[in-house]
């Protein structure tokens, strides 16, 4: 259990929690309880599962505490008895969870972190998909180089820049956008 500075995955997890707290608050305000349950319980739990997997269990103490407390508060309107138990017996809070203020994000959602996390997720999904595709092919008796018994090596290639022919048009677009601040697309 770590303390101290946040790593990249710590910041992703914190940011995802903050985004889900905001979403859940909005769903409760709109009396959309199914959606509030989705973002406040199911998605919130998935965020934790992802964090446990990517950190290999090497989690930050403060974030886990933050998670348990926020989870209790988000679900209190729907599961008040369970929440009361965790609030008093596990978190050792004085008083009832019914008197506590609703969950608040620790800071506003950072779209840059969210985008970075989405990129990492989609990349790791792509890797898993590529692997399972090989396994399926092998199961069907097709000839593949992939051998699941052998140690694996993964190479990831990253382009730091767009290809020149694309960059040319991005530059052109940027120039126009700065000049008129409006682009009209005609079909």
């Amino acid at each position: 259990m770590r303390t101290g500075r946040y790593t990249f995955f710590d910041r992703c997890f914190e940011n995802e929690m903050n985004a889900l707290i905001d979403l859940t608050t909005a769903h409760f305000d709109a009396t959309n309880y199914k959606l509030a349950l989705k973002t406040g319980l199911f998605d919130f739990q998935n965020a934790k599962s992802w964090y446990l997997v990517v950190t290999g269990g090497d989690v930050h103490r403060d974030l886990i505490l933050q998670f348990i407390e926020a989870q209790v508060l988000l679900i209190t309107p729907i599961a008040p008895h369970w929440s009361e138990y965790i609030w008093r017996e596990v978190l050792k809070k004085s008083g009832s969870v019914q008197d506590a203020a609703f969950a608040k994000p620790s800071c506003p959602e950072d779209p840059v972190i969210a985008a970075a996390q989405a990129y990492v997720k989609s990349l790791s999904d792509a890797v898993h998909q590529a692997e399972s595709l090989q396994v399926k092919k092998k199961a069907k008796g097709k000839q593949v180089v992939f051998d699941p018994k052998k140690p694996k090596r993964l190479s990831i290639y990253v382009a730091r820049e767009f290809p020149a022919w694309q960059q040319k048009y991005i530059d052109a677009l940027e120039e126009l956008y700065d000049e008129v601040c409006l682009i009209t697309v005609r079909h």
Partner: protein
Amino acid sequence: MAYYTIAHLLHSKIDGSELGPANIPAKDMTDEIWDYIFLSKEYPSNTSVPESTLKQLRNSFEYWYPLDVRVSGKDLINNHLTFFLYNHTALFPEEYWPRGIRTNGHLMLNGEKMSKSTGNSMTLREGVEKFGADATRIALADAGDAMDDANFEENNADSAVLRLFTEREWSEVFDYITQLTTGTNSQSFEHAYWAIYLLRPMF
């Protein structure tokens, strides 16, 4: 709905067989008295009900009105809810018009219509006895929003029981580990053993 704001003062039994704290028999509730309560008209001269009692009724109405939200089924949009709007606009000034209406679909059980003849039914009390209050509430919240027919799935209530149980256990184990790691021996065998629990895929 305006009547709800004073009903508890007019009768203490739902069928009206016993008078409420205001102690006014039904026959004494004249049109003028209703106007006094709901429309702030003058205290009528032809009544034996004391003004202080009527003031109490009026206060209760003015405290609660306008209503924030009326919740009803989608089958009542064409009749009850429409006339609810007509009546309020006809009788009351704009400040007492309803602020919101929320409608819901019918509640299904395990994907089938609830009905007496097929026996496909469950009362709230039966739900609570079977799954506990919190899991029942989770399955109800998960049943659906808005106008679509909501569907209470017993499987969802079952998995909610498991979900709440494992999450409680996980939180308790974490609590235990933080106590261990605040000591000096954070690499102990016991720590490693419990850390396995943290890593279990949740639900």
